């Protein structure tokens, strides 16, 4: 049996976790290819015109997978382990996918306010006729894999922070940072201009920074809101030359977040650049803005 996973949006929330999980259960995995022009165009055509760009890309990936596998796996992410909510657009994704594709869809609600992750995964395993032991082993392996990646990233971070180049922090959601087509190869562009690029995801949150008193932002009920603000707080301890935030067009959550992220950097006099990406963004325009931003720092 082949399980398809779209390489967009929800995939980047827990990269490699789902692959490892299903592979360990003995299924074949089909992941859609990295985003390309055709996928984006298909997604834009088939989605609601006012939904965010990241969602449009996701629909493109779904359409690519349609008909190529037995099941497409689309989790319904509601709350995480910290009992904080995901973006409300994630809540409806499996239902909207049912309208869009003809393929069968495999879904499970992940709501840790009601049920912990292990139990939900067990239920998911039951749908695939796998017993508790098998699921448990697969879950453990997936967590190990995730931890390993996390560790490598942190090591990376400390290597980067020691670099003598100007250090830039890229702030966005993982599905914008990791997808090279979507963010127009931002990392590569910045590196060519002589910068060291740090993703906000790579920043480790330490206890000291987490317990610092916060009054610059409201108490977020979104998991990414809290996480990003805490990580910004942690990274401010290091010498950062500038910050760049990337938002997908019509991202409702970023409209809130941006205000407080900007305030945080501006109050410390760190240059801040805000970029919006969508299907019409041109690479030349981005290049000019990045170059101008780098010039202001010299």
């Amino acid at each position, binding site marked *: 049996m082949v399980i398809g996973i779209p390489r967009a949006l929800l995939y980047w929330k827990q990269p490699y976790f789902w692959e490892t999980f299903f592979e360990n259960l003995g299924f074949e995995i089909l992941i859609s290819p990295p985003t390309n022009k055709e996928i984006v165009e298909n997604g834009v055509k088939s*989605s*609601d015109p*006012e*939904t965010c760009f990241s969602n449009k890309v996701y629909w493109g990936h779904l359409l690519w997978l349609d008909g190529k596998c037995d099941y497409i796996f689309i989790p*319904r992410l*509601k709350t995480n382990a910290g009992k904080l*909510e995901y*973006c*409300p*657009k994630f*809540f*409806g994704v*499996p*239902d*909207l996918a049912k*309208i*869009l594709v003809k393929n069968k869809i495999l879904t499970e*609600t992940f709501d840790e306010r009601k049920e912990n992750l292990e139990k939900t995964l067990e239920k998911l395993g039951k749908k695939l006729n796998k017993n508790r032991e098998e699921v448990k082993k697969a879950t453990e392996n997936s967590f190990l894999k995730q931890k390993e990646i996390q560790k490598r990233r942190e090591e990376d971070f400390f290597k980067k922070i020691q670099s003598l180049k100007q250090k830039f922090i890229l702030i966005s959601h993982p599905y914008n940072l990791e997808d090279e087509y979507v963010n127009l190869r931002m990392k590569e562009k910045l590196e060519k201009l002589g910068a060291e690029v740090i993703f906000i995801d790579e920043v480790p949150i330490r206890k000291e920074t987490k317990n610092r008193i916060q009054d610059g*932002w*409201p108490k977020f*009920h979104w998991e990414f809101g809290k996480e990003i603000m805490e990580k910004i707080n942690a990274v401010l301890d290091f010498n950062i030359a500038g910050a760049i935030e990337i*938002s997908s067009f*019509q*991202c*409702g*959550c*970023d*409209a*809130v977040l*941006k*205000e407080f992220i900007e*305030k945080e950097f501006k109050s410390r006099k760190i240059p801040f650049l805000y970029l*919006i990406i969508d299907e019409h963004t041109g690479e030349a325009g981005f290049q000019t803005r990045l170059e101008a931003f780098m010039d202001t720092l010299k």
Partner: protein
Amino acid sequence: MTKIQNSKPVVTFARWGNYTIAFKTIFEQLGVEVIPPEKTNSQTIAEGASLSPEMFCFPLKVTLGNYLPALKKGANTVFMVQNVGGSCRQRYYGAIQEKVLKEAGHQINFLDFRATPKDVYSKVREISGASLWQIMKAARFFFRRLALIEKIEKLGQYYRPREIEKGETDRIIQWGFSKLEELKKEEDFPKLRREILKKIAEIKIDKNKSLPRVALIGEIYTVCDPDINFKIEEKLGREEIEVHREMDITYQLKKLIFPWKDWIIQRKINPYLRSTVGGHGRDAIYEMLHYIEENFDGIIHLLPMGCMPEVTVRPILERIHQKSGMPFLSLSLDEQVAEAGIDTRLEAFIDVVRNHYKNKNKFRTAKS
């Protein structure tokens, strides 16, 4: 700018269509000085939009624009409710508006309260120092007015398409609202209520007229505020279409008090959506299914541009529309939408509704 620490609080609050009159009563009854927010017009919208974050949803920009003239007149305290819908951006309206206003140089006291009786009570107490008895009394007057306003709105929906002299209903309703706003003594309220209802009942109408019916669904603020949705109810009424709308403050309050309303909604929409999406996303699907069962002739979906819950459910609404053949129009509103554009789309939609109504009746007579 004046210092606010020592001065008396002068309150202004978020405007919401005709219900603003009822909100004003609460503060007046508590003996707090209140400057009501400016009526929404193109200038307040433009001013609000110029201050607020570009990508934020429309109601934030509108309410912000309404505060500004009141703040100029001397208000120093802003009241804003948070978390009306659930997990949407409305939760951060207060935080963002406070930040934006303070950055623009206004020295204000921003009161951001959750829509729970306990929080409302403590905030009101903080600002006015009123006793529990006074607050209860103010709440009673608030609900009395709210009930009357909602009743007038509902009557308007019925009388407008049936009136013989065009425009009479709107004239009387406008008169009624202005009288209600001017009302000073609470003892005069029952008399005024009788007077308004009597005047409305005296409107000459054609009772036996059979009319096409259209329902308004969608985001609560845009559906309820006639200044935001370009008076869509009046326009449809004048075209001899009966408008129905379930969304109002009473509906929202009922949902807060009786949680099982949510369960009923969820059970009905299970084939389409198996989760909440924040705001009133589920309600829109529920209402659409309900109005299809009631054999309506058209559904208009109103939302602020980019509203997260409504945008999420819109593909589902369109799916239901395709399956059932019910005429459906979705209008996104923001500061850049022009009235002429909305009018053109409405006119076209009205033609579709009339056709649907005619064909439906033809089919019915042929069958019988």
